[in-house]
């Protein structure tokens, strides 16, 4: 593909423009996320050993990635011994087929599902709906976006982009709550009653997996709402879906990860529930689907395999100045924000070429990451790869070429500076027209000085 003809099919910047049309909402969204970031700061500062925990977690995950095949086999063997059926899926399509097969084998028409970013990545809900299965998301935020027919905009807070009045409107329409009611406690109680009926009448539950333990063949699911437990313990069949990178070697490693996860995510010392599943109930069937879907390719990218250490806490998202002001949906990938922007190009460089550019490279994501992924470096590295592969829009590459030639030639640089200053003094309004100068889109241009620093320096050096 030639770089001059490439135009991104979807574009973060354009979607962000749309999000930013409502300035009041952007400011509210920005503050809501910063509030969570601050809670994370308070929680982490209470542990003097915080940095040791981060370093240890990062090293455990590095050990996992370097031995992933052996740990996967060990996990499979132990899980089978525990009476769990283990499935392997090379990609999203195979994952979805496996899940549907289990559902159909039991003649089930409806099921409850707790949060799983993997199933979002695989678009499982759409696939099951197309096959006539009624899927009910049971995490409150996920239920809200499901009723709104939207994807989650944040991996931990799926409906962080919605105002309570909008949730009230949705619940009025779908759950019959009072018109105009928007009190979060009232709406949560309505969802509790609505979903309790679903828990009590569903024979099958799908959950995600936060950690799977190679040594013991069990897995851990973390929630605050208790929805994964309500679903799994009442259902005859429990299917847990996980990416292959969710493996950890030993149960004792959980001490490190559970200390980091909730503190990084929401500033809580631990999620309300950290549920350890090792064997099905006597009257229950338990399945685990191990999904690759591009992970083994990412594992081979030396600049990017560290991204597979991610424990999906969302800290990088909450702190990101670009995410906070552009909203999760402008990332057009299941996982939004900085971490999504380094995972998405691995899945589809062409479709996600814009995402690594949705960053100021300020490095805040890297600073808060509990497993020390060098997120901002990877964003920068992806830009190099994408440009080399020809996935960067021509406006960007051409502009860079012009800039490179100007900056590498002192005469041209001086000429450009002089004419720029002249033009800005002559017609200051011109530089502030957004269509002519994209730099001025959200900025006012400064007043142009009469002379450059170089001119001033030459003049003053002569004087002294």
């Amino acid at each position, binding site marked *: 593909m030639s770089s001059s003809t490439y135009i991104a099919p979807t574009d973060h910047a354009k979607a962000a423009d749309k999000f930013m049309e409502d300035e009041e909402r952007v400011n509210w969204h920005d503050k809501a996320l910063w509030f969570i970031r601050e809670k994370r700061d308070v929680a982490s500062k209470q542990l003097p050993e915080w940095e040791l925990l981060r370093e*240890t977690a990062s090293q455990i995950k590095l050990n996992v990635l*370097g*031995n992933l095949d052996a740990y996967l*086999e060990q996990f499979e063997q132990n899980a089978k011994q525990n009476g769990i059926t283990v499935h392997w*899926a090379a990609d999203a399509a195979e994952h979805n087929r496996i899940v549907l097969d289990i559902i159909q084998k039991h003649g089930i028409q409806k099921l409850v599902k707790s949060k799983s970013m993997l199933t979002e990545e695989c678009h499982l809900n759409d696939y099951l709906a197309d096959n006539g299965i009624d899927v009910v998301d049971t995490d409150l935020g996920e239920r809200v976006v499901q009723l709104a027919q939207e994807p989650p905009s944040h991996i931990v807070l799926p409906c962080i982009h919605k105002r309570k009045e909008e949730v009230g409107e949705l619940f009025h329409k779908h759950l019959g709550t009072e018109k105009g009611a928007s009190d979060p406690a009232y709406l949560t109680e309505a969802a509790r009653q609505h979903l309790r009926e679903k828990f009590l009448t569903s024979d099958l539950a799908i959950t995600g997996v936060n950690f799977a333990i190679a040594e013991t063949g069990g897995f851990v699911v973390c929630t605050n709402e208790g929805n994964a437990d309500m679903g799994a313990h009442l259902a005859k069949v429990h299917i847990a879906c996980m990416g292959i990178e969710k493996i950890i070697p030993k149960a004792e490693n959980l001490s490190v990860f559970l200390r980091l996860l909730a503190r990084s995510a929401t500033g809580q010392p*631990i999620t*309300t529930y*950290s549920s350890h599943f090792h*064997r099905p109930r006597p009257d229950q069937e338990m399945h685990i689907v*191990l999904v690759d879907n591009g992970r083994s390719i990412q594992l081979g990218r030396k600049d990017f395999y560290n991204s597979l250490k991610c424990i999906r806490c969302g800290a990088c998202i909450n702190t990101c100045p670009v995410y906070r002001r552009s909203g999760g949906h402008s990332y057009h990938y299941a996982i939004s924000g900085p971490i999504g922007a380094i995972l998405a190009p691995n899945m589809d460089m062409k479709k996600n070429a814009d995402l690594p550019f949705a960053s100021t490279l300020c490095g805040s994501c890297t600073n808060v990451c509990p497993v020390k992924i060098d997120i901002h470096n990877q964003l920068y590295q992806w830009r190099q790869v994408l440009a080399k592969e020809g996935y960067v829009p021509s406006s960007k590459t051409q502009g860079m070429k012009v800039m490179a030639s100007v900056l590498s030639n002192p005469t041209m640089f001086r000429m450009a500076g002089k004419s720029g200053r002249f033009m800005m003094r002559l017609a200051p309004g011109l530089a502030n027209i957004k269509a002519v100068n994209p730099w001025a889109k959200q900025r006012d241009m400064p007043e142009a000085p009469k002379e450059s620093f170089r001119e001033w320096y030459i003049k003053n050096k002569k004087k002294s």
Partner: protein
Amino acid sequence: MSSRESILKQVKANKPAAAPLPGALRFPPLPAAECLEKYVRIAEAVGTVVMRVDDLSAIGAYLKKHYESPERVLNTVKGVGFGQELSGPIEDGHTLSNLEMAVVQGTLAVAENGAVWVSEEHLPIRVLPFITEHLMLVVSEKDVVNNMHEAYARLDVSAPGFGAFISGPSRTADIEQSLVIGAHGPKRAHVFLVK
């Protein structure tokens, strides 16, 4: 080639160089009195009502005083003396949909996060501590540990088929970051620390 084989083959071919697994972290132990004080402070901060009692019968006396009817109360801890005592397993969790209160034995409690380890070994059915509207956990004072490292060192989490760290009542902040207690699990949680 099956997907299992192809995934394992590709992982093996692409994985980075092996790095050592760090050993378990250990921190100096906290004196028992400080540990208990820390537990109470943090458990209360996450919405748990903590009661320190001399013995199990004191729990029964407390419950009698605060809850009129023992009818919809399921008590799985012998010696508490309130509600319907139960020692055997429950066949079907759906029958508990109307349960007001469950009294359940916890194995240990963790000071740093207010959590209590509750496992199948002490449960007549897995769904019990989640489906009940009000969860009463009973933990011995000597079983309060400082942090998660100490907790995992003491527990064999794979011995029961199911176990969970439970910290406070269920909650959500999904609507505009407003904390609401009582999502899908219990709306209230007590921990009784027994001397």
